[in-house]
């Protein structure tokens, strides 16, 4: 047997309980995160079968998708949302699962709080009924989204059945240029691969550009893996990872820490390991990015023009349908397009670093009058940091308000809906038709691009505003 393995192989293979001939692997799950939307039918399933949750201590529940982002101390007004939230609380209590509901000090978006409290660890298998579970791959974990039937499987048996994905490595060397953030790096990759270019694969991100990123930046990149079709993405853990993880509530302590470290230090791709597909890009060529269509693969450098239909991969009909929805034309420049909404937040860009970036642009400027801005921290911990670091003062001074944590306008399950026809610059992950509210139009971008749009009222290259600050 070959001794050389990829990082992905090492973690996957060590979690296989059982292999089925011409079928999936039975994969053991170390951490299961649960939220209110994709879990009720799964809990109902185990209830109907009269089976308990096998490992409640490996299961963590938080409320995020449905929750309001103002007046969280009041009862939730929407009866359907309130019902889902109540169900999660009841299920968590019944089965002895940690529950960080609305109002709890540790409440926040599931993919933000997992790392914050050390639930997310290198070399773990992590699942959640949410496709952006790939976020946790930033720590060298195998983390991916699952459907409700699989949530039920994990509750019942702590395992799921998955065919092993193929392996892809994306190498990017070079430094991020001025005005470029991890979000831009991810949107660039997706624009190159298209929205289905990594389907069937699990991705490892390697190279200087990812090494140089903070843990928050790595989370943003891994979060967006699903947007090119990959089940997940991961980055080999390093000193930065271990430093981040150390001392958090759920991370191992004392002798257990040493034992964990002994495992974690083996988590890298061996020098001559083989990938099914390998791609390499030059990071220094990446610009601040913006999307112009209705899937995250329809993105480009902010100073470019919208491509002509005959110059893109895929069918022209679908492409033109997409531009028609956006009310854009082939060949349009994005710069200068007036916008109506700005959303800073989500599991993609709702971390402290994202608020620092946003504040760096709006500092000393004023929110444009034509813009409604929703600034939603990913968790209470992020919210506290925003206040402690003085960022809230900068935002307030510039005419912005800070809301309370949750998924919010990323998928608009609560009241944070962009009205039909309105154009939003959003730091979230999907620009699908109606994603931010029926008829809404979304431009995905980084916190810097969102900030530049928020103060100018139109699509603006953030580098223009950064020049003045030098």
């Amino acid at each position, binding site marked *: 047997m070959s001794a050389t393995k990829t990082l992905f192989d090492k973690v996957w293979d060590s979690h296989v309980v059982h292999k089925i001939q011409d079928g*999936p692997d039975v994969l053991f799950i*170390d951490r299961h995160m649960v939220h209110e939307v994709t879990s009720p039918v799964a809990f109902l399933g185990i209830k109907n079968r009269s089976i308990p949750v096998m490992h409640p201590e490996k299961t963590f529940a938080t409320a995020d998708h449905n929750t309001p982002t103002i007046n969280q101390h009041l009862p939730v007004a929407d009866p359907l949302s309130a019902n889902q939230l109540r169900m999660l609380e009841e299920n968590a209590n019944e089965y002895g699962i940690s529950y960080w509901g609305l109002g709890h000090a540790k409440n926040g978006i599931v993919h933000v709080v997992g790392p914050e409290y050390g639930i997310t660890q290198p070399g*773990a298998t992590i699942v959640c009924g949410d496709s952006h579970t790939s976020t946790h791959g930033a720590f060298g974990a195998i983390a991916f989204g699952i*459907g409700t039937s699989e949530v039920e499987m994990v509750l019942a048996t702590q395992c*799921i059945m998955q065919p092993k994905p193929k392996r892809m490595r994306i190498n990017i060397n070079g430094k991020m240029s001025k005005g470029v953030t991890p979000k831009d790096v991810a949107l660039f990759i997706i624009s190159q691969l298209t929205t289905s270019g990594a*389907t069937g694969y699990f991705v490892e991100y390697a190279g200087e550009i990812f090494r140089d990123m903070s843990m928050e930046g790595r989370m943003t990149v891994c979060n967006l893996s699903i947007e090119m079709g990959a089940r997940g993405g991961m980055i080999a853990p390093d000193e930065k990872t271990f430093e981040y993880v150390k001392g958090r509530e759920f991370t191992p302590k004392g002798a257990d820490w040493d*034992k*964990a470290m002994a495992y974690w230090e083996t988590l890298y791709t061996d020098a001559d390991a083989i990938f099914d597909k390998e791609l390499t890009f030059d990071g220094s060529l990446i610009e601040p990015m913006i999307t112009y269509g209705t899937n995250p693969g329809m993105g480009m450098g902010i100073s470019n023009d919208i491509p002509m239909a005959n110059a893109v991969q895929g069918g022209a009909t679908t492409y033109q349908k997409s531009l028609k929805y956006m009310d854009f034309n082939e060949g349009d420049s994005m710069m200068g397009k007036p916008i109506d909404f700005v959303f800073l937040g989500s599991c993609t860009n709702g971390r402290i670093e994202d608020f620092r970036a946003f504040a760096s642009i709006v500092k000393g400027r004023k929110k444009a009058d034509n813009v409604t801005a929703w600034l939603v921290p990913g968790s209470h911990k992020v919210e506290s940091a925003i206040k402690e670091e003085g960022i809230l003062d900068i935002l307030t001074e510039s005419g912005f308000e800070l809301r309370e944590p949750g998924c919010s306008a990323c998928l608009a399950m609560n009241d944070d809906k962009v009205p039909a026809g309105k154009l939003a610059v959003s730091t979230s992950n*999907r620009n699908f038709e109606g994603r931010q509210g029926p008829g809404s139009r979304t431009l995905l971008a980084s916190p810097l691009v969102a900030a530049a749009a928020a103060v100018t009222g139109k699509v603006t290259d953030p580098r223009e505003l950064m020049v003045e600050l030098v």
Partner: protein
Amino acid sequence: MAYDKFDILTSTAVPLPIENVDTDQIIPARFLKATERVGFGDNLFRDWRYNQDNTLKEDFVLNQDKFSGKILVGGKNFGSGSSREHAAWAVYDYGFRCVVSSFFADIFRGNCLNIGVLPVQVSAEFLQKIFDAVEADPSTELEINLPEQKITLLPTGESESFDINDYKKNNMLNGFDDIDYLLNIKKDIETFAENTPL
């Protein structure tokens, strides 16, 4: 939950020749608030089926009486986006038992298999033939033969084979689900759990 057995399905088809049909189109997020698996078919393709005043969008394929059947035929990269199994539930609840496309997003494909909807992946050429045939004559029937892993355009007899792993095929043929399997190996799982490092 065990589901319907799937053997041979012969049906007319509903064509949706659009690429990258995402799960937010299949079932928009605002309809994910139910706590039981009922009624999702009503909101399948909600914003493509209905105007914002809830009147029908007459030109959308589900609103055209001439198209019906238990087979949904979609463009490349069907089901991209979210992991919401509600998308597969909506497809099932509306009455579809099979989705045909030239490419599926991973999670959607898995969700379909887990609830008894068969995803059938065909070549881009064969997909185009199906679209052409169904649009020219909506009474065109397709046969999906799971035991033989074969899809046939009945009027012409043109066919193509499709992939499915033996394990899932057996589940679909018998209406078994994964939890039945996992519960049978619970002892192995418990032993494994005692030796995990994290």
